[in-house]
């Protein structure tokens, strides 16, 4: 692997997909090395912008030398990205981070995505299906229009379960309410979304002794491992907790290694805690 790469990518497409925007960028080198769980960092705002940091997005798909990100417009950065035109150039770095670990053979897999966390699950489902796995997809959001990538999910997963907090689509409630019903005979659980959701996903999987992998979304300044802003407490093989970088050692971690109870703090038993 010779990446990650830093390139000026041409916009090949910008589409509204429900409440989200799909941005497709021509980036052959990044597409060639992309794996499920990888993310990219996009510069925003143009030459005279006041925004000095890049915006990070999970890869929602790749192929034919292009990569796709799916995002919601929240602030000035995503607003600028959503207003790009085909032909415009966007500075993009990637593929970044540690992707999901894939099984060596066919398995029964449950993929759980909350909000924008559904994005990386699409390529993950494709990869698992190629391995002959059974893919059960569980997608949750606050409201129906906030559901991400449900159409793609139906194309790539064996089953798709939907939950919304207000019941405007699928089951009323959280993904954690629906997950137990999907764990029967499961070999692995994969989750991406808000920390609170990942915590219950990892917990429910552990309860039935199914291994889980979770992709976290910590605020990142550099995305490449040089600034130390994106750390969270992770249990090591030696049983000791270290503050690891979500952008480099992550964003994917084993569910039973994330100290969910201590995220946002430096636990007293962490290596180097003062």
């Amino acid at each position, binding site marked *: 692997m*010779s990446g*990650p790469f830093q390139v000026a990518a041409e916009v090949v497409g910008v589409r509204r997909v429900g409440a989200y925007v799909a941005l497709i960028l021509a980036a052959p080198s990044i597409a060639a090395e992309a794996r499920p769980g990888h993310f990219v960092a996009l510069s925003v705002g143009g030459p005279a912008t006041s925004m000095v940091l890049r915006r990070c997005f999970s890869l929602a798909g790749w192929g034919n030398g292009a990569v796709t990100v799916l995002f919601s417009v929240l602030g000035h950065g995503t607003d600028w990205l959503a207003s790009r035109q085909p032909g415009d150039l966007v500075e993009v770095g990637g593929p970044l981070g540690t992707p999901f670990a894939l099984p060596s053979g066919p398995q029964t897999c449950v993929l759980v995505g909350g909000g924008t966390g559904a994005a990386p699950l699409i390529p993950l489902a494709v990869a698992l299906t190629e391995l002959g796995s059974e893919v059960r997809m569980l997608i949750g959001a606050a409201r129906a229009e906030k559901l991400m990538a449900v159409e793609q999910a139906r194309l790539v997963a064996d089953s798709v379960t939907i939950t919304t907090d207000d019941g405007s689509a699928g089951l009323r409630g959280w993904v954690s309410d629906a997950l137990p019903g999907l764990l029967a005979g499961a070999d692995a659980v994969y989750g991406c979304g808000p920390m609170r959701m990942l915590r219950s996903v990892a917990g429910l999987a552990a309860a039935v002794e199914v291994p889980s992998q979770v992709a976290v979304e910590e605020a990142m*300044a550099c995305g490449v491992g*040089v600034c130390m*802003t994106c750390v969270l407490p992770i249990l090591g093989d030696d049983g000791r907790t*270290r503050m690891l970088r979500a952008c480099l050692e992550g964003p994917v971690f084993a569910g039973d290694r994330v100290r969910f109870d201590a995220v946002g703090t430096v636990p007293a038993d962490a290596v*180097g*805690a003062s």
Partner: protein
Amino acid sequence: MTDLTTRLAGLEFAGPVFTASGCAAAGRELAPYFDLASIGGVVTKSVMLAPRAGRATPRMAETPSGMLNSIGLQGPGIDTFLSTDLPWLAQRGVAAVVSIAGHSAEEYAALARRLRDAPGLAMIEVNISCPNVESRGRVFACSVDDAAAVVAAVRAEAEIPIFAKLSPDVTDLVSIARSCVAAGADGLSMINTLLGVAIDPRTLRPVLSAVTGGLSGPAIKPVALRCIWQVHAALPEVPILGMGGVRSGRDALEFLVAGASAVSVGTATFADPTAPARVQAELAAELTARGFATVSEVIGLAHLKEAPVREGGARAG
């Protein structure tokens, strides 16, 4: 074509552009993006005696043309640094400038001792923007005496050039600079971040869990240029490693003519991991376009009453 060879405190570097401490870790993560040996050198994240977990998150807030950070010097400690990080740089022929930090003059001295005859080590940058446990947590860089004490302690142990890294959050920067040089600093790095606060208007609470953080990026460039201007005017013989918002070769040129002998690129690396190499290439083009044969020719040029207007530079902005 301008010769980029850069001399700092008697040492020769491949170019005038370095990474900035804390913005390049120990170099390794930037290797995929450019040849680390092609720039002046890698200034490593400030290392302390013991491993440090740093501050709680959030540790970062974006601000207009800048950012705040409160990393809290997370790092592996000097032992792991010496066994893992420094050898990696040495094997690749990368000039290493090791930044050290401590809570007492003794800690700084101990670090300098540990660094003795470490392979591949070019210089030591002394990060004195740390709370001094012996004076109610006042930052060393904010006191003429504390700053001098730390520099003297490192000087006594180190056999290589040492640069003292100054904080802009002081009333009289020149006197701090003088005392560091008098205590044995071969050069000065400036500037470290400005202390700042960001408030989250949603929660009505500080964004950073540590409340205060260090402000960096283009927002502070005018302050950095002012600090360099004042210190170079007062101590023209002392080499300055300049930093604070450098993002382009044009910026780097401004730092050199203001009095810096070389520059570090920090926050700009977060938006573009190739930034240190790109900035050096852009600077080379700016210098060549103006017909300068060497980097040293431009150092402090802006202080001349009438600097020659050279061709090739486009308008400001």
